[in-house]
């Protein structure tokens, strides 16, 4: 790029970036949400129970297929798990987009008073960076990180284990009564996911097309080689083998007149063949004399078959 275009280009980019940033900063996010209506993605879990395990099946945000989240408790009895709309727990500074599923209200009893229950939340949908955040409306800081242990299991399954103390900050009922109400949900950084995937997917396209390019270059070389071989073979077929020259001894005793006669005969023979191949029925201009002669000959020939003549001669 020359200097002028470079400067123009730089200033254009700068202007655009400033405008974009102004839009991002000046347009309040809440107004934007209000303008575009409610979030269309609202995962609604369906719960099933099998023994001590309750399973929530739901289509999470930004996914098209359902996932399963399994809840299990040790140190107490898992009574129920219910879905809870994020709106009930909406607080400034917490973005519901970070929660890919609804929140879960887990009820546990049979915990020794002031004791601790361990809640395990397992899913193939979690990643090693997934956190579990707890909501307690009775506290001033309603949202807190549960500091869950994130354990990797076979088949890419992650298990989050949270220790919940009866009457502790994670217990929404706040009472030391052997019963725990534990509300929260698995959290992944929305922007981390969005930007991370952006780079991975964009370079993924480069990778896919680069592999295809390499494949095409290699196959192109093979095809070119095959075509060259084929062309070479065709050339070889086209080249006729040299006809061996017959060893004819010159007849010294032949007379010049005879040689001339033979030569003339051969010439006439071959030129006759040549002209025969190209012979065309081009009729020269016919004179009246010739036409009359031909008519006479034809009439004479066709007397036996010419019906008109036969009738005339009758």
């Amino acid at each position: 790029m020359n200097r002028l275009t470079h400067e123009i280009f730089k200033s254009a980019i700068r202007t655009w970036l400033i405008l974009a940033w102004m839009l991002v900063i000046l347009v309040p996010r809440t107004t934007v949400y209000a303008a575009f209506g409610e979030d269309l993605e609202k995962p609604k879990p369906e719960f099933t129970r099998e023994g001590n395990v309750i399973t929530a099946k739901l289509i999470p945000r930004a996914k098209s297929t359902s996932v399963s989240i399994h809840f299990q408790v040790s140190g107490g009895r898992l009574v129920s798990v219910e879905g809870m709309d994020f709106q009930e727990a909406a607080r400034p500074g917490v973005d519901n987009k970070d929660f890919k599923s609804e929140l879960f209200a887990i009820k546990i009893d049979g915990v020794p008073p002031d004791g601790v229950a361990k809640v395990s939340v397992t899913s193939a949908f979690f990643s090693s960076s997934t956190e579990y955040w707890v909501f307690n409306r009775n506290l001033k800081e309603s949202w807190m990180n549960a500091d869950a242990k994130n354990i990797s299991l076979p088949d890419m399954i992650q298990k989050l284990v949270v220790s919940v103390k009866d009457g502790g900050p994670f217990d929404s009922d706040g009472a030391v009564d052997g019963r725990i109400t534990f509300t929260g949900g698995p959290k992944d950084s929305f922007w981390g996911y969005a930007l991370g995937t952006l780079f991975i997917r964009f370079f993924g396209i480069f990778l896919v097309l680069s592999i295809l390019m390499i494949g095409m270059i290699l196959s192109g070389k093979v095809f070119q080689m095959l075509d060259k071989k084929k062309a070479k073979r065709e050339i070889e077929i086209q080249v006729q083998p040299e006809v061996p020259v017959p060893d004819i001894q010159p007849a010294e005793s032949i007379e010049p007149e005879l040689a001339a006669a033979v030569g003339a005969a051969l010439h006439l023979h071959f030129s006759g063949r040549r002209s025969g191949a190209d012979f065309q029925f081009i009729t020269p201009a016919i004179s009246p004399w010739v036409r009359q002669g031909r008519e006479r000959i034809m009439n004479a020939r066709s007397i036996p078959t010419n019906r008109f003549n036969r009738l005339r001669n009758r």
Partner: protein
Amino acid sequence: MSWDQVLELIKSILLTQTGIPNLDIGQVIMILVSFFFLYLAVAKEYEPLLLVPIGFGIFLVNFPLVPLMGFTEHGNPELIQAFYKYGIQWEIIPCLIFLGLGAMTDFGPLIANPKTLIIGAGAQLGVFITYCGTLFFGFTLKEAASVGIIGGADGPTTIYLTAMLAPQLLGANALAAYSYMAMVPLIQPPIMRLMTTPEQRRIKMRQLRPVSAREKLLFPLIASIFIILLIPAVAPLMGMFMFGNFMRECGVVKRLSDTAQNAMMNIVTILLGLSVGATMQADVFLSWKPMLIFGFGLLDFVICTFGGILTVHIMNKFLKEKMNPLIGSAGVSAVPMAARVSQVEGQKADPDNWLIMHAMGPNLAGVIGSASAAGMFIAMFK
């Protein structure tokens, strides 16, 4: 029957069975919008094959009480709803269009110069930047992906991805994609001139090598193997595209190839256009979101053009035989319009410079690139 009863009956008929009392301002605005698109298609000849059915679809569905996009009492879809449901919701029509496109495409320039595939990848830059930009404005991840793909300048891919991820944005996305595709000769040249020097625009490229029929025949198979193995989610689109191309190149099913290129393509284009237009009912379309989509769509095209040319500049740093950076803009797909724009701009710099065949390589790579980007998004949201 008394006069009062007759008047009441007439009033009841007028209110419940005629459109006039039910017509609202939003519908009038949408009918005017449909006139605008019909004008662009008919008078300006901007993508008329698509904008005529889309425009007429918008026109038809914005009359009140019309039984076109709803369901009957028995749950059967009404006329255009049936086209939409079975054609677009079931993701059939975009794939059939890809079949027809495959049957129409000669991959020769791409096979002769496979390096241009990288340009097709670079030109997807806007898809991902727009995806991020739209997230700032409150779009969900799926919506952002469907808006981002507009920059790929590939109508069927946009429709396929939007129908899958954000069907509520289908009308706006399709319209933005096709409108900007039609406006490629207006959008791209200033960016091309801005990003290249006159010397670079005058670069002459070596004539492409001849490609044998056998190579062309095997290309769809080889490309399918690589692409579908790496991105299985793109199999419906890419599979149909390559199948169409295989029918063309094998030469033994000329009837099928002709049908795919002509009759079938025309039929599905009519159904697609009407269905897409019919999604633009006033209550859905008249909001800020479509306006933002149009804004982001334009930005998307600009960045994709920028990305394609930038990729050529970067490639030229490593290549012995330099490529003319003008062919980079053709990486945005929009076949063959974008390639023609490269040719025109190249000839402005040097009347003896023939870039069209060189630009067809990135142009076709753009189709594969945008379909791959769509496949990436589908896999991401699976």
